[in-house]
């Protein structure tokens, strides 16, 4: 079955621009905002948002990366996931951290990310920005900023491609996708 296109490159770009504007609307001052992308899908998105925010706020917005695999609660259920670097820019205590991920699904990654974030400091608040919200939440977690809401079946897979990693921008819904995590 052919994969169906959810966002093409232009739509993906518009979605990120809109999220950036919503972040500005929610946070009056950019001085205390830190973007943290969840490895691996959220990191490039966080850096793109940081670039747009820098233009909107006229000041640099730090962006970092957070790997949550050491904070997952399901290590025994699958092969140990590859652990990618965590790079938190500066002290996040007292800051507004915007967690950034590509796809919001069960909410378990976000749960792990909130725990992992706590090891680095105590943010004043944490907001969640995702490119795609595909539903099927298993925890009481809700995104503050969403690029696109998509109705999916549990056995489908959302495939986000980004120029930095995959050479092209776009989001596809893969029917009966097998295995590889979003």
């Amino acid at each position, binding site marked *: 079955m052919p994969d169906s296109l959810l966002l093409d490159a232009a739509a993906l770009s518009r979605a990120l621009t809109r999220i950036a504007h919503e972040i500005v609307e929610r946070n009056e001052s950019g001085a205390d905002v830190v973007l943290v992308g969840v490895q691996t899908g959220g990191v490039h998105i966080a850096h793109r948002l940081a670039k747009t925010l820098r233009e909107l706020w006229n000041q640099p917005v730090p962006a970092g990366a957070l*790997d949550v*695999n*050491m*904070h*997952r*609660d*399901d*290590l*025994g*259920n*699958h*092969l*140990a*996931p*590859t*652990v*990618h*670097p*965590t790079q938190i820019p500066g002290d996040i205590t007292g800051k507004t951290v915007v967690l950034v991920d590509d*796809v919001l*699904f*069960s909410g378990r*990654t976000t749960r792990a990310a909130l*725990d*992992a974030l706590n*090891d*680095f400091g105590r943010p004043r608040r944490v907001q969640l920005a995702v490119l795609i919200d*595909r539903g099927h939440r298993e925890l009481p977690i809700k995104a503050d900023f969403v690029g696109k809401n998509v109705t999916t079946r*549990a*056995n*489908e*897979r*959302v495939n986000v491609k980004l120029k930095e990693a995959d050479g092209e921008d776009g989001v596809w819904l893969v029917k009966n*996708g*097998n*295995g*590889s*995590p*979003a």
Partner: protein
Amino acid sequence: MTWNRKHLLDIESLSADEIIAVLDTARQFKAVGERAIKKVPALRGKTVVNLFVEPSTRTRISFELAAIRLSADVINFGAEASSLKKGETLKDTARNLEALNADIIIIRHSATGAPHFLSRFLKGSVVNAGDGAHEHPTQALLDTFTIREHRGKIAGLNVTILGDILYSRVARSNIWALLKLGANVTLCGPSTLVPRVFEQMGCRVTYNVDEAIADADVINLLRIQHERQRQTMFPSIGEYAALFGLTHARFARTRPNALIMHPGPINRGVEIASDLADCGRSVILEQVTNGLAIRMAVLYLISGGKGAQELGGLA
């Protein structure tokens, strides 16, 4: 990720990719050790048993701290105070520990193959923390990690292992790891402790220490294991120090950036002149730090479940 093993029994059976997977994972766990909060919940609820039938302090402490940093519960089980002294077999001891729901058994034993033996009937994971003169896989992993951290690679490097090769599980595990990753390995020491048979593994064997260290990028000094040797292996400690020790004169002839390594504990003045152990090119204490990261990585990797990653379960 290329790791799907339940046990870590030896380096011999690992592929280069699997070794690299451990080293890459350890890099991230080393970063955890540099944070204010050095503990992660990856192994929360798991029980790790340190079954050290042969005495050890540093390896046991390193494994213990690794397990604690991963939030596992740890039990230390030493030979001295154990039922093994009362005549219980290793198999029965291990099965008793498993009956307490141990998830991972880390074993050190004087008998070659003891970890492999346990892995054949235990449901949990087994980690070899040193079996006889056979292998000490985590030591080789932390040594290659340390070399890679300094040089960015292993392939093409000249690594000299100097000292007691015959009785050394550290040497055997290092030889396997280094050869698999493409290093050139030279072995040197008294001929009684460095049999030519190691040439069959693909190593260069020489009894001329100056030749062994002249073009070395890494010099790994192995401890003279007084406790395992008969007196006939070499005439005296003094003679060993004079003929094979890393003296100032020899150090001056090494490559200017050659790394000096030692798995510890050091016999100062025997394998190495005392102040050289503390010089800028000595990475002996880094090896200890890296050992913790390697052991965290190993415990993390073997705790992964089996089979394919579940569909969407990670998103």
